């Protein structure tokens, strides 16, 4: 097996492992569209990173986080319906990113890579960053698992019980931003949310506890990465979209199971 294929596979597996639990929270908290908006903003982060000549991943995390904070303030002020607001910000930031990237030298920028991912271009250096980011996110996620679950069930109840709801929400957004920054390599900004949402949604039918769903989502995501890479290798299809195709296939397969089928 070629080395670059191994790096791609390992990188994909690590991101899928983290995307499981994080994606589950996004499904439970109805954050799918929110995730899309952040992912689109990531392209703006790339442009900014290139412009200011700073680390691109760092720029992406910062832009995502700023947008997330802006979003929660605007939602709180109830200027306009939330889905409309998300629609506006999502496409405004995507377009702004595309426009600013077009101002750079065309040769040096792999736009398709940013949009749809370039899994096979993952190097050892990238792999190290992915591993670090995934570990960080996983450790934080595990340590705030219970309070996060509490605010997901009911925010007011959680607040009365002494949980800092605003802080937990911000932390969750930060984790999503970090995962977007690293997952951009794998599936690109246009498909990132699918890697978070689809395995979690597919795991729902089989699970009877939140932890089970999170774990199962990780496994399904890893399966999708493996299958997608194989598809890409043997049929020369684009890697990122292939992963998403396999994940969606898993989703539809699992949802054709009878409703009563659950792991106990």
């Amino acid at each position: 097996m070629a080395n670059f294929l191994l790096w791609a596979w390992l990188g994909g597996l690590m991101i899928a492992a983290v995307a499981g639990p994080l994606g589950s929270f996004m499904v439970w908290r109805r954050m799918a569209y929110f995730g899309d908006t952040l992912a689109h903003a990531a392209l703006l982060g790339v442009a900014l990173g290139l412009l200011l000549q700073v680390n691109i991943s760092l720029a992406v995390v910062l832009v995502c986080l700023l947008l997330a904070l802006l979003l929660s303030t605007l939602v709180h002020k109830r200027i306009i319906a939330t889905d409309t607001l998300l629609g506006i910000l999502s496409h405004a930031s995507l377009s702004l990113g595309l426009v600013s990237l077009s101002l750079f030298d065309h040769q040096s920028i792999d736009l398709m890579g940013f949009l749809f991912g370039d899994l096979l271009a993952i190097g050892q250096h990238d792999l190290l960053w992915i591993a670090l980011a995934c570990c960080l996110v996983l450790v934080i996620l595990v340590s705030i698992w219970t309070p996060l679950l509490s605010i997901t069930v009911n925010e007011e109840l959680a607040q009365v019980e002494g949980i800092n709801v605003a802080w937990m929400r911000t932390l969750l957004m930060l984790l999503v931003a970090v995962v977007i920054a690293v997952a951009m390599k794998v599936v690109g900004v246009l498909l990132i949310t699918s890697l978070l949402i689809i395995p979690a949604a597919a795991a729902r039918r089989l699970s009877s506890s939140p932890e089970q769903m999170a774990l199962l989502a990780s496994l399904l995501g890893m399966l999708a990465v493996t299958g997608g890479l194989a598809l890409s290798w043997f049929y020369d299809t684009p890697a990122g979209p292939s992963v998403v195709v396999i994940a969606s296939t898993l989703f539809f397969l699992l949802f054709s199971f009878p409703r009563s089928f659950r792991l106990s």
Partner: protein
Amino acid sequence: MSEVLLSATDLGVKRGNRWLIKGVDISLEAGQITTVIGPNGAGKSTLVRSLLNLIKTTSGDITTIKGLRIGYMPQKLKLEDTLPLTVARFLDLGRHKQHQLSPQLWHDLLHECRAEKLLNRPMQELSGGETQRILLLRALLRKPHLLVLDEPVQGVDVTGQVSLYNLIGQVRNILGCGILMVSHDLHLVMAATDQVICLNQHICCSGHPEQVSQDPAFTDLFGPQGAGNLALYNHQHNHHHTSHGDIIAGEHHEGCDHG
């Protein structure tokens, strides 16, 4: 007089140009059941939510005893279908690390709330009444000093309402906690209440249930019908309401219910 758990003076919440509540003084004591009643839009939930520090107040002060533990039962619980959560797990989320119920007390309360058989069921499959009982049980898990219930019988049928109010009364006796309850059905709550606060943006009248039911401000607020229902409950027949047919029907219903 028992210990004052929480007191608020001159509480006011203003949204835009409108005061949702204004100049509210309230004091909640251990072992006492206080019921806030008032018509729709009177600011009952606003009052409760400001006391719980869930919304910002525009004026007033709230003081509590140190380390006050509050058990809160929200009006409704809306759970996403995508979240696989059993009743047992839902209850676990409400446990306090330091202040846990003794196994005996837990067992008693579980029994009182008729929740033993529900523990392994998914939360989403519970009926309205079952959900309310589980919410109450969760509020109790922290051994609260103060129990706050926002319209606890919403979506529960009439027989269920009676038993839920009985349950709340029992809980007060078992835990000795203070209870603040919001309600808009006057007649059912009155029997189990020590203090009634009649709210319509400001406090119209307050005091013992009988005292309040005779207050002209109370009749003004709820009209002869509402006040009449209450009077009936206290076996003091009030003749204001007999002129309307539909009210007489209601009277019968109340009579049956009570008898």
